[in-house]
C-alpha cells in the first residue's frame, strides 16, 4: 500500500472506514474486511482525504457508487430519522411509564401499612441511640 500523496488524518480515515460497509462481505465494514475491494475502498478514502475532500463528500461519493446500503448506519434525515428517533423515544416513554407506574403503586398506598411489630421496630431503630452505622436497615437483601 503506497502512501497517497498529500497529508491526511489517519484517525479520520479510520473513522470513515468504520462508517462504510464492504459491499460484498456480509455485515463487515471496510475497516474490518480483508477482501481486495475493501482494501481499494480504504485506499480511495485516504486518497480523497489527501486531496482535501470532506468526510461528507467521501461518504456521498461511495453512496453514489454503491447505493445507500454502503453506509453503516441510516442517514439522520428524511424518513430514516425514524430509525434513530423511534427507539430513543420508546425507551424514554418506557422510563416515564415506569416512573408513573411506581408513583401510582405508591399513591395507592400513601402510608406504608406496616405490620405493627415492624412499625415498632422501625420506630425503635429511628429513635435508637445505637452507634451510628450499627442499625443498618438493610443487610440481607
Amino acid at each position, binding site marked *: *500500500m503506497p502512501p497517497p500523496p498529500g497529508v491526511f488524518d489517519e484517525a479520520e480515515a479510520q473513522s470513515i472506514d468504520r462508517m462504510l460497509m464492504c459491499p460484498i462481505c456480509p455485515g*463487515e465494514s471496510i475497516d474490518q474486511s480483508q477482501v481486495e475491494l475493501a482494501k481499494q475502498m480504504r485506499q480511495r478514502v485516504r486518497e480523497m482525504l489527501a486531496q482535501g475532500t470532506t468526510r461528507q463528500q467521501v461518504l456521498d461519493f461511495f453512496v453514489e457508487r454503491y447505493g445507500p446500503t454502503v453506509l453503516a448506519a441510516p442517514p439522520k434525515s428524511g424518513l430514516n430519522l425514524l*430509525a434513530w428517533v423511534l427507539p430513543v423515544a*420508546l425507551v424514554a416513554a418506557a422510563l416515564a411509564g415506569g416512573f408513573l407506574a411506581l408513583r401510582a403503586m405508591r399513591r395507592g398506598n400513601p402510608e406504608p401499612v406496616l405490620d405493627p*411489630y415492624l412499625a415498632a421496630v422501625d420506630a425503635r431503630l429511628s429513635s435508637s441511640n445505637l452507634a451510628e452505622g450499627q442499625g*443498618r436497615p438493610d443487610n440481607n437483601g
Partner: protein
Amino acid sequence: MAELGTIALWLAVGLGVYGAIGALGGQVRGSPLLSESARRAAYVLPLVLTVAILSLVGAFVGRDFQVAYVARHSSLDMPRIYTWVAFYAGNEGSLLFICLVLSALAALALALAPGETRRTLGWTAAILLTVQTFFLAVTAVMANPFETLPLAPPDGEGINPLLTHVGMFFHPPALMSGLVAAAIPLAFVMGSLIGGKTKDEWLDAARQWGLVSWALLAVGLLLGSWWAYTILGWGGFWFWDPVENAALMPWLALTAFIHSVMVQKRRGMFRMWNIVLINVAFGLALYGMFMNRGGPVPSVHSFGASTLGWVFLVFLVVGVAVPFAVFFCRFPALTSSRSLDSMLSREAAFLVNNLMLLGIAFVTLWGTLYPLLSRLFGGQEITVARPFYDQVNGPLLLGLLFVMGVGPLLPWRKATPQALRRALLLPGLAALGTVALLAGLGMHQGYALAGFGLCALVSAGIAQEWWRDVAERQRALGEGYLRAFWRRTRSNRPRYGGYVVHLAVVMVALGVLGGSLFDRQRDVLLVPGQTAEIGEYQIRYLGTVEQPFGDRTEYVSTVVVQRDGQPLTTLYPWRAFYPSQSMAATRAAIRSTPVEDLYVVPSENRADGAVVFRLVVNPMVWWMWTAGPVLVLGTLVCLWPQRRVVAVRAASPLTAQTGRQSTSG
C-alpha cells in the same frame, strides 16, 4: 454408524411425542401412573440422544463420507482434533446438539423440581417435551444429519476455516445451550399458571434455571467475542453483527428477569412483570435460534441458506403467542400482594434496571429489523450496523452501569436520608475522584470519563457493602475477618454472588471502554528487516515461512517487538490460505497485559515476502477475557444450594399487647 444414529433419532422423536402426550394426559386425567411414565420418557431421552450424537461424532472421527453431512463439513486434511466437534459446524448437527442439551437439562430440571412445583409438574413436563419434540421432528424430517449418499466420495468438502479454532470447542455449545435453556424457566412459570398456581410456586425453579441459561449465554457471548478478536483479524471483538445481537437480546431479558425475580422473592412484588419478562426472554431466545438457523439477515454466522427459517419463524410466533395467552387468561389472579413504599428503594431501582435492559434489547431488535422494515414499507435498502448501535446503545449502557452502582446500595422498601447518605457518600466520592483524576491526567472524552467514573462507583459500592457486612459480623461475633467474610458470604449467596458478577461486568466494561475508545490502529506494508512503530512499540518484521498442509498453506510471520528500544517479545502471527474453499483465515498474535494488548495480524502476504500488517494497540481488553471466570464464579455462588429457611409464624411480643394477629409470614 449412520443407521444407529437414525434409529436413535427416530426413537427420540417417538419418546418425545409419547412423553408430551403422556404428561398432558396424566395431568388432565389425574393419572399418576401415566405422569410417571411420561417423566421417565423425559429421563430416557438424553440417553437415546447421546447415542445419536456419539454415532454422529463417530462418523466424523471415522471419516465416514458416506454420511452426506460428514462429507459436507469435514475432509481428510482437516486437523484431526476438530473432527470431534465438527458435528455442530452445520445446521443438522447443531439441531441434534440442541436436542441433546435441552433433553438433558429438562430431565435434570424435572428430577430436581422443588416441592412447590410438583403438583403442576405434569404441565411443565408437557411443555418441555413439546419443545423437544419440535426440535427433534425438525431434525429428523428436515435436517437429518444421518442421511447417506449413494456413493461415498473419496474426500469431504472440508470445514469452514473460521471454525478450526479453540473457540469451536466452547463458544457454540455454550451459546446453543444458553438459548435452549431459556425454555426451562418458561416451562416452570407456564406449568404453574396453567395448573392454576398463581402465587410464587415457580419462583425458585425459574430463578435457578434462568440463572443457568443466563450464565451459559454470558459465557458464550464472551467466548464468541474472544474468538472474533483472535480470528477475524481487524482488532475488535464486537461489532453488533445480527447473530451476535440475537444472542445478546435474550441475555439482556434474562438479566432483567434474574434481578426482578429477587424483588418477588424478597418483597412479593412484580409477579406479573416477571412472567412478562420470562415470556419475552424465551421469545428472544427463539428469535436467536431462528436467526442462527436460517435467518434472513446477512451475518458472519451465515451457515448457508436453508429452508428451516420458516419453520423456526412459525415456532417463534407460537412460542410467543401461547405463553402470553396463558398469561392473559390468568391475569385476574396474579395481582401482587404488596405495593411500593418509596421511590428511593431497591425495588424501584430494580424496575429502572429492568426498563434499561429491555430498552437496550429493543434498540438492538429495532436495529436488526429496520433494514427489513425499510425494504418492505419504504422500498429502500438500508444498512444498520455498528455506528447506529454504538450511538444509541452507548448512553443506555452507561445508564445501566449507573443503576448497577446505585441499586444495590439502596435498601429495600424505603431509604431514609441518613441511610442514603451513608450508602452513597463513599462510592460517589470514589466516582468523582476518579473522574477528576482522569481529567487531570488529560482525558477529555466525555464517554470515557463517565464510563470510568461509573466503574469506580460500582466497585467502590460493592467494596463498601461487603466490608461493612463483614466488619459488622466481626464486631458482633468476634470472629476473625477471614472467617467472618466466609460465613457472611455463605449466609446470603444470591447477594454476594451478585456482587461478584457485578465486578465481572465492571471488568467487561473496562475492556469495552479501553478497546473501543482508546484503540490505536495502523496498516503497514513491511519488507523483511523493516520496522514500523505503533505507540511505544517498534515492530520489526523478520520474514515469513511458508508451511504447506493438506488443506491449507500457512504463512507464519516472525515479528520482534521492542518497546522504547528494549526487546520485549517475539510474535508469530499467521495467515492461511485454503485453496478448496478459496478462503483465507488469519490468526492474530497478541501480547496481552492488563494495561494493553499489542495485536499484530498479517492481512496480505505478497509474493516477494512483503506483508501488510495490521497493528493495533487495545488498552485493557485483557480485563474483558479475565471477566469470564469471575462471572462463572459469581454465578456458582448464586446457584450453590443453600439450606432452605422455613418461615415459622411466631407470636411477636406486640401481638400479645395489641391483641392483633400479625400479618407478616
